[in-house]
């Protein structure tokens, strides 16, 4: 189906993303801006604060089924996780363990730990990871959505891969250390962060989908993210028992061996046997997905 008017996920803020993701007018925010939960650690440095500390959490329905939703505000401090921001996300997963929604949807847009409160942020992400894993163990699926300007990096890059499935747009990026950090420490020859095409070939949605890190690749369109989330809700939740983790261990080992010399997404696409790797960045989601279909990369492939 072609859409005459697209609403960009990339350009939207967290509340607009949620509004377009779930059933109309179904979202009820928890600890919203009226509660004025602002970071005292930013205030003490005379830095701007936000009434939601850069993350929106709450309850909604999707296709009439109850879901919990969290969405990070990339525009506030790069979506970085501080004490309150992290506690809100952790609280969302603790709530899920009690209310047992059909899923938790996590719209990630974050560079990771907020350096101004670095220790609190690191611990908060650790608590978020444990709460997410606990909700998962209780049988509640967790789905991640990545398509914002900050992508998912640092601790939030790890959190993203704890999700049962990930939806990404080409614009979304996923990794651990950002290109700027690698360039600063290791030099421009290791990673030229100004080479935007290279950055996307190493961290972007198409590369992540090709490796199986992302479950679905969609266009930068809020309705496309919504459709993807709806289809995930209809899927069985994958197991995470010893046998499943053994299988992931084998797949990740094979990936490292197969791509032992790769330094660019082009190397990966070539090794996967995709025709004309250099043209892949130009394709829209539908054409890319058609190209990839014969490979059907699965989780951790």
């Amino acid at each position, binding site marked *: 189906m072609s859409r005459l008017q697209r609403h960009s996920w990339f350009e939207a803020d967290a509340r607009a993303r949620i509004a377009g993701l779930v059933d109309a007018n179904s979202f009820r925010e*928890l600890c919203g801006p009226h509660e004025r939960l602002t970071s005292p*650690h930013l205030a003490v440095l005379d830095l701007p604060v936000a009434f939601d500390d850069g993350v929106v959490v709450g309850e909604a329905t999707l296709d009439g089924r109850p879901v919990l939703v969290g969405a990070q505000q990339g525009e506030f401090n790069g979506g970085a996780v501080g004490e309150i921001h992290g506690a809100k996300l952790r*609280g969302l997963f603790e*709530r899920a363990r009690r209310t047992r929604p059909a899923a938790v949807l996590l719209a990630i847009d974050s560079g990771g730990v907020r350096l*101004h409160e670095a220790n609190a942020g690191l611990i908060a992400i650790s608590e978020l990871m444990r709460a997410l894993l606990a909700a998962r163990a209780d049988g509640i699926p967790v789905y991640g959505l990545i398509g914002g300007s900050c992508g998912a990096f640092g601790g939030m890059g790890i959190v993203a891969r704890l999700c049962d499935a990930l939806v990404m747009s080409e614009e979304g990026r996923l990794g651990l250390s950002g290109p700027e950090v690698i360039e600063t420490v290791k030099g421009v020859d290791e990673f030229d962060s100004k080479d935007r095409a290279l950055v996307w070939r190493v961290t972007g949605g198409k590369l992540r989908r090709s490796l199986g890190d992302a479950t679905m690749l969609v266009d930068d369109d809020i309705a496309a993210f919504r459709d993807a989330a709806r289809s995930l809700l209809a899927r069985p939740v994958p197991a995470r028992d010893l046998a499943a983790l053994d299988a992931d261990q084998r797949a990740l080992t094979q990936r490292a061996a197969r791509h032992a010399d790769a330094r660019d997404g082009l*190397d990966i696409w070539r090794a996967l046997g995709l025709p004309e790797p250099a043209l892949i960045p130009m394709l829209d989601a539908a054409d890319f997905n058609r190209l990839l279909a014969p490979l059907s990369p699965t989780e951790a492939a």
Partner: protein
Amino acid sequence: MNALLDRLFPTGHTVAFDGHNLSGHAASAAGRVHVIGTRDRAALTTDMALKLSQAVLDAVRADQASGDPRPIVFIASTQGQALSRHEELLGLNGYFAHMARCVDLARRSGHRLVTLIHGEAVSGGFLAFGLLADRICALPEAQVKVMDLRAMARVTKIAPERLEALAQTSPVFAPGADNYARMGAIHALWSDTDDWPQALRQAIDEAGGEDRRAELGRERGGRTLAQPVAERVAGVPLGA
């Protein structure tokens, strides 16, 4: 590292080294334990993450057969994740997430998880492994951080003198195992004169249950907001 292991496990251990990885078994005051970790402030790569995950999966499998999940002692010594385009391309974050899932599986399979920080524990390398244990202890001189204060000053564009001054009163951003202890993420700071086998036994005895770090951070006064904010969103008291 051998001196550390000898002091921790005076009655014997069979810990083997594989590059920066280590794994094996030891006799502790709390019985036989698995020992898994890294040494020499390793920069964690996909290869090292796979070895750590494999060791955890092997421990779970071994004890599943016997029906007696033994404690796992993690030794954390890491300067953080390896900074490399190749590692990023492979999806180092996903290898770390897999490691975290394996640690979580071990917890759910009944293993008590204790981390000992030796040397240094930094950022991503610590987050997906040692920091996920039930009980975390820092050995003397252990350093814990996200980033150096000077690098932090550069990135945040805040004068280093100002950060130094603030660090005297606030535990939230400056490096230091004592700061992490005040915030509830390190349960005990071991001193050189402590009886380590006894301290380890206590840590193993106390390990387990729900994540109570936010509660501990509030009790110790270093992290007062995490617990009440999470509880407001959860709608229930945590750890109940």
